C-alpha cells in the first residue's frame, strides 16, 4: 500500500541511514540549509552541493535524487531566466537585444548569468537536502523526537509527517473513485485535464483534514505530548551520531570563521570578483566535513567491526 514506508521497513535493520538518530539528521540538514543561505561564494556552494550529493549517493538514493533534481533543474532554469532578463546590472554584456514594451532594452550580462546560476545552485542544494529528509528521516523518529513537547506545533508537525504518506494512498484511492464516476483526468486538452483534478484535490483536502483529526485524537487518547517520555528502541545517540555532530560543529565554526575573514563572501556586480585559491581550500574543508556521513557509511558497509563499534 505504501511504498514510502515500505522502503524503510525492508532495509531498516541493515543500513546506516536508518540507524542515525533523527536529531542528528535534522541537525545535518539544518546546517546545510543554513550555510546554503549564508554562503554567496560559488566554491562553498559547490562544495556543499557535492557533499550532499555524495551523501545521497552513498545512501543509494540515486533514482530518488534524480527525480528531485529534475524538478530542481526546471526551477533553476526559471530563476536563471528571470535573473538574466530582469537584472540589468553587470558590466560584461553578452547580448544587447531590441527594446521591448514594459521590459525596455534586453541586456544580458555575464554577471547576471553567473548570479542566476548560483541562485539556482542554492535551490538545488535545498531540494537535495529535502530529498535526504524524505528518505532518511523516518516519520516515526520525528514523532518520537517531538513527543516530549506538549505544544500544538509539535503535534501538528508530527501529524503532517504521518499524514504525508497516507495522503499519497488517499490520492490514488480518490482518483480511482472519481474516474469510476466518469471524471476523465486524462483529457487531451491539458487545461481540461487539470480542471478535472480539482474534485480529486478537494476530496483529498477534505479527507486529509478528517483523517488528521482522527489521528490527532488517537494520539491525544494515548497521551502524546504529556511531557518527558521514555524511549523503547535503540535510537539512542551512538558514536556515529557524535562523529557527525562534531563534524557539523566544526564545519559551522569554520564557515563562521571564513565569513569573518571575508572569504565566504563573493560579489557578482558590477564585475565578478576574482576567485582566490584560499577560498578553494576553505571550500574543500567544508566539503570534507559535510561529506563525512558518506565516508562513515562507506566504512559501515565495508567493515562490520566498525559498524558494531559506532
Amino acid at each position, binding site marked *: 500500500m505504501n511504498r514510502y514506508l515500505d522502503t524503510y521497513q525492508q532495509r531498516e535493520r541493515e543500513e546506516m541511514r536508518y540507524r542515525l538518530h533523527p536529531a542528528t539528521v535534522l541537525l545535518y540538514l539544518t546546517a546545510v540549509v543554513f550555510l546554503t543561505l549564508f554562503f554567496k561564494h560559488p566554491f562553498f556552494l559547490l562544495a556543499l552541493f557535492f557533499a550532499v550529493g555524495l551523501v545521497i549517493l552513498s545512501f543509494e538514493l540515486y533514482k530518488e535524487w534524480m527525480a528531485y533534481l529534475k524538478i530542481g533543474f526546471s526551477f533553476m532554469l526559471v530563476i536563471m531566466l528571470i535573473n538574466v532578463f530582469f537584472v540589468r546590472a553587470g558590466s560584461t554584456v553578452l547580448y544587447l537585444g531590441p527594446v521591448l514594451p514594459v521590459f525596455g532594452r534586453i541586456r544580458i550580462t555575464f554577471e547576471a548569468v553567473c548570479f542566476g546560476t548560483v541562485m539556482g545552485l542554492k535551490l538545488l542544494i535545498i531540494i537535495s537536502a529535502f530529498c535526504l529528509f524524505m528518505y532518511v528521516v523516518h516519520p516515526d523518529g520525528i514523532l518520537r523526537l517531538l513527543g516530549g513537547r506538549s505544544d500544538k506545533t509539535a503535534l501538528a508537525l508530527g501529524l503532517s509527517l504521518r499524514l504525508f504518506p497516507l495522503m499519497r494512498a488517499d490520492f490514488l484511492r480518490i482518483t*480511482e473513485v472519481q*474516474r469510476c464516476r*466518469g471524471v476523465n483526468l486524462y483529457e487531451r486538452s491539458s487545461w481540461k485535464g487539470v480542471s478535472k483534478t480539482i474534485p480529486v484535490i478537494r476530496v483529498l483536502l477534505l479527507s486529509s483534514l*478528517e483523517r488528521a483529526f*482522527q489521528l490527532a485524537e488517537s494520539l491525544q487518547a494515548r497521551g502524546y505530548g*504529556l511531557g518527558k517520555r521514555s524511549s523503547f528502541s535503540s535510537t539512542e545517540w551512538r558514536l556515529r551520531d557524535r562523529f557527525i555532530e562534531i563534524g557539523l560543529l566544526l564545519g559551522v565554526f569554520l564557515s563562521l570563521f571564513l565569513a569573518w575573514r571575508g572569504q565566504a563572501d563573493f560579489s557578482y556586480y558590477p564585475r565578478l570578483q576574482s576567485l582566490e585559491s584560499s577560498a578553494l581550500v576553505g571550500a574543500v574543508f567544508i566539503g570534507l566535513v559535510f561529506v563525512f556521513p558518506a565516508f562513515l557509511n562507506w566504512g559501515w558497509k565495508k567493515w562490520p567491526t566498525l559498524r558494531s563499534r559506532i
Partner: protein
Amino acid sequence: MAYIKVEDLTYYYPEQELPALDKINLSLNKGEFVLILGSSGCGKSSLVRALAGLLPDFYGGKMGGHLYLDGQEIRTIKRASLVNKVGMVFQDPESQLIMSNVERELVLGMENLGLPVSLMQRRVMEVGDALALNSYLQENVNDLSGGLKQKVVLASVLAMQPDILILDEPTSQLDPVTAEEILTIVRKLNEDQGMTVILIEQRLERCFHLADRVVVMEKGQIVQNTTNLEEIVNWAANEDSPFLPPIPRLFANSNFGQIPLTVKAGRQLLESRSNQKRSYGESQSEDWRVTPRENPREADGEVTEHRELLLQVEKVSYTYENGSEALKDNYLDLFTGDFLVLMGENAAGKTTLLKNIRGLLHPSEGSVRFGGEEIKKKPLEEWAGEIGYLSQNPGDYLFLPTVSAEIEFTLENLHLTNSERVVSLMEKLGLTKYARSYARDLSSGERQRVALATVLAGDPKLIILDEPTRGLDYALKAQLGEILQNLQQEGRAILLVTHDVEFAAEYATDIALMSQGKIIARGSKEEILSDLTFFSPQVAKLFRNFTDEPVVTLAKGKSVLERFR
C-alpha cells in the same frame, strides 16, 4: 459507590445549537461489561469520548454537569493519570495507527507515559502473546490485514493497562471470524482481569449476550439503562426498536412467549418444544420437519425468466507489483437481476476482484467481460454509465456544496443532462429534503445514500458495492437493503462485498465465498449460508438440524418457528 458516575452531563459541539449529550445520568460499576446502543448520531460516541476525557479537551465546545471516575471529577484528574486509566479503541484502525512498525505502535502509549524500558518489554511480550502478535512485531503496519491492524490498535491500548477499556465499533470492518476473536479477547479481559469494558457496537448478534448492562441512547439522551437483558429485549420488542439481536427479534416478532437471548438458549427452547410435540405423538415429518426444495430460486420461477448475461469473469488471476498473488483462477457470471454477495476472510482478495471487474486493475491472466466486451479494451471512465462502483468510503465521492450538485456532477461527466433524473434519484433514495444540504455534513447513512445516488446517476446495469454496511446501524442497513432489492427488481445486477452475514442473508439472493484469492463456492444464500459455522446468520444456526429446510432469513425463520408453537 459507582466506579463511573455521570450527573446531568450536557455537551454541545462547537457552533452547534443542539446538544450532543442532553442531561445524561449514568452509574457504572467496576468490572462491568457495558454495551451502548443507539442509532447513528444519537450521542453514544460523544458519551464515551467524554469518559475518555476527549470532550471538551480535544473537541472544544461547551460541557455542563459532572463526570466522576472512581469518585474524582474527570476534569480534575491529570491527563497522564486519565490516559493510564482509560484506554480507547476507535472504529477505523487506519486512522489510529500512528507508527509504521507494529512494535513501535505497541509502545507508543507507554513511551508517552514515560514507562521504563524493562516494563515496556514485559508488556509488549505479554500483549503480543495474548493477541498472537509476537510474530508480527517487526512488520510494517501497512502490510497487515484489517483484523491484524485492529488487534495492533487494541494491543497498543492494552499495553497501557487501562482500568477501563472503551471500544467504539471495533469490529465493524472485520470478518466474522476475526470479529469473534477480538470480542473473545475483550470478554476474557473483562472476566479474568476485571477490566471495565464499554462497548459501542452495531452488530448486536456478536456481543449482546456478553453485556452485564445495556444502555440505549436516543437524541443525546439515555432511554434505557438496565442490567436485566430480558428487560431490554421486552422493551425493544414492545417499542419495535431496531436494537434487538436476530434471535430475540425472531422470537419476539413471532409472539413465542419466551424470548431467548442467544442461539444456544434458542436451540434449547426449540429442543424442549420438539420433545413436547414428540411426547404428544406428533409426527416430525408431517408437522414441523420439512423436505428441502432442490433449488429455492427454481421453485420461485426465477430461472425461467429471460435474463441477460452481464458479466463474465474467466480464469482471472492477479499479482501485485510486489509479487503477492491476490487472485487465482476465478470464474464468475452475473446476469441481470442477480444480487450476489461476495464474502470471505480479510485479505481474501475480494476488493482486488471488484477492482478487476471495474477495470481499476487489469487481470494478470484471464479476462473480464461486460456485455461481451472486454473491460480493459475501454478506459474505465467510459464504463461509468454501465458499471457503478461504490467504494468503502462514501466521503471519497463528495465535495460539492449540495446533494443535487453531486448527482448533477456525475451526469455532466457522462455528458447527460437530465434534471428529472436528479429529482427521481433523490426521491428514490430519500434524499429530497437534503437536496440543498452539504453532503459531508449529513449522517453516515445519508452520506452513503448520496454517494450511491452519484453512482446510480449514470443508470448502470451492474452496481458494485464494497463494504457498504460499515458503520451503519440496523435501521440504516434495512434502508440500504431495501434500496438494493428495489434496484435488483428493476433488473440491475448487484455485486456486493460485506462481512455482515446477517445483511447478506437477509437481502442477497446468491453468495460467493472467497478464500486465499479464489472463489471457492457460489450458490443461493440458502445453499451457502445454512451450512457454515462463522459465515452463517444466527437464524440458520438456530434451526440447524431442527429442519432440513434451509432457513437464513428472519421471515423464513418466523414461518418455521410457527411450527414449534
